[in-house]
């Protein structure tokens, strides 16, 4: 009488309300666009102060990471992200939020294994696989370049 897992999977997909993809994409586009525009503004300013493109980019990243950390501490970042989705996930601010939020959340477990270890629970894989990919690329260059 009862459905097979395959049949039930179909039933549950039908019963699940769809997410509003177009609306979500629009909000993500707008919010993400604004974050990048702030970044571009900071970058142009740094370059007008005579910083190189690399240093200007680094200062811009640090500035955006600071903004994200502050909004995370003030309990605001998640409220924006609830609507913005990928708009706050994909920019460097999302990476910062992924590091700051567990650090804040797990301070009750202490500063070593709470803050120190949990900080990397979401962002750690990003650093690991990004670095690993860059090493592979560097090795290919060193061998074949």
């Amino acid at each position, binding site marked *: 009488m009862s459905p097979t897992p395959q049949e039930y999977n179909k039933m549950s997909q039908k019963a699940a309300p769809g997410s509003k993809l177009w609306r979500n994409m629009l909000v993500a586009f707008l919010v993400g666009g604004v974050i990048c525009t702030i970044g571009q503004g900071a970058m142009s300013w740094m370059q007008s102060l005579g910083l190189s493109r690399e240093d200007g980019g680094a200062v811009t990243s640090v500035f955006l990471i600071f903004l994200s950390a502050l909004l995370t501490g003030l309990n605001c970042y998640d409220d924006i992200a609830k609507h913005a989705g990928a708009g706050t996930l994909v920019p460097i601010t999302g990476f910062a939020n992924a590091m700051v939020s567990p650090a804040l959340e797990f301070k009750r477990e202490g500063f070593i294994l709470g803050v120190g270890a949990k900080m990397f629970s979401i962002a750690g894989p990003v650093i690991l696989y990004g670095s690993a*990919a860059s090493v592979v690329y560097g090795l290919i260059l060193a061998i074949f370049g």
Partner: protein
Amino acid sequence: MELLISLGKAFLIGGLFCAVGQILIDKTKLTPARILVGYVVAGVLLSALGLYQPLVDFAGAGATVPLTGFGHLLATGAQKAVAEKGTLGALTGGLTASAAGITAAMLFGLLVALLFNPKDKS
């Protein structure tokens, strides 16, 4: 005027990166951590293939602020270090180039944990 155009390009390309991310959130079962890893690795790959630098030249922060830009930074860092130091550069280049961002995120994470307390979602 030039500033406005550069801001507009950053908005457009940065927004597009995020809109693609939203499709991944809504249409796949990928968790946010997987999407972030995917973006960074994709950035390294696109950069290695020489496809990302033109985008950075065009869109500025629109291409460097999304996490693919983080991947691009890792890749160009490795590239530069290998050119300067040879094989050892493959190990040092990536994190050296991205040290400012990673260190800032760690440091601000620690500071926020010191200064604030977690709150319930309203």
